[in-house]
């Protein structure tokens, strides 16, 4: 329990968000939406970390999340640059159409 909030609620919410993120990453075709889904997965992990940290009575969970946010920002900047670079070649970011490299 974290105050009146049961940990299992936190974790279930986190798990649901993670699963939704996976679903988006697997089912969307647009690279941006896939990446948004991956961001959602990382946020789900953040929620779990904060929930655990609070339940365990340590701030380490928050510290981890702090770093994860920094990493996510960095990842986003590189990702967006990659999207721009590929868009210059293919005029699309639909991953179904980006399959020059195969077999």
């Amino acid at each position, binding site marked *: 329990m*974290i*105050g*009146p*909030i*049961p*940990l*299992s*609620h936190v974790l*279930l*919410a*986190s*798990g*649901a968000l993670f*699963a*939704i*993120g*996976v*679903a*988006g990453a*697997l*089912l969307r*075709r*647009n690279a*941006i*939406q896939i990446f*948004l889904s991956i*961001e*959602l997965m990382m*946020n789900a992990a*953040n*929620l779990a970390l*904060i*929930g*655990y*940290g*609070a*339940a*365990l*009575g*340590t*701030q380490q*969970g*928050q*510290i981890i999340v*702090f*770093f994860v*946010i*920094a*990493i*996510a*920002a*960095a990842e*986003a900047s*590189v990702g*967006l*640059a*990659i*999207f721009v670079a590929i*868009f210059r070649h293919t005029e699309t*970011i639909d991953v179904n159409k980006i399959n020059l490299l195969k077999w």
Partner: protein
Amino acid sequence: MERLIFDAAALVAIVFAGLMVAGRDPIKSVLALAVSFFALAVTYVLLLAPFIAALQIIVYAGAILVLFLFLIMLLNVGPERPDGVRRPVQTFLGSLSVVVFAGLLLGMLRASGARLPGQPEAVAADALPDPKALGRLLFSDYLLHFEAVSVLLLAALVGAFVLARRENAQ
């Protein structure tokens, strides 16, 4: 009361996450995700992490998602249109596996959340929402991480520059 707010916020986060995934229009997706992130920030406050909640709003919702919006506008990406090629295997296996995975994950989390193996002896001062303590922790135990992440940010910065600058920049 707090429990109720938490559940409501979590529900909002989940629903809007679902909308983000379900929508074909990337702009709507970004907006839905922004709502979801706001709701998550609310849960962070309730979980004694106001500092992270602020970061969540400023960095995630504020900076990253706006960047996404900007990019979508820049590249003029429209909604996903059916491309005429059906991919039943990917869709079917993808959905099925997500359902199985969600079942496994939620089952495990429910069981483990009920009995946390950790020990709440250290709960005292450390657990309070105290950014100062957080800062201390950051520069003592997590000093190396802090330094390491600076390398990561540097690499990302240079990398983004390498990839996105104009071709004739040389």
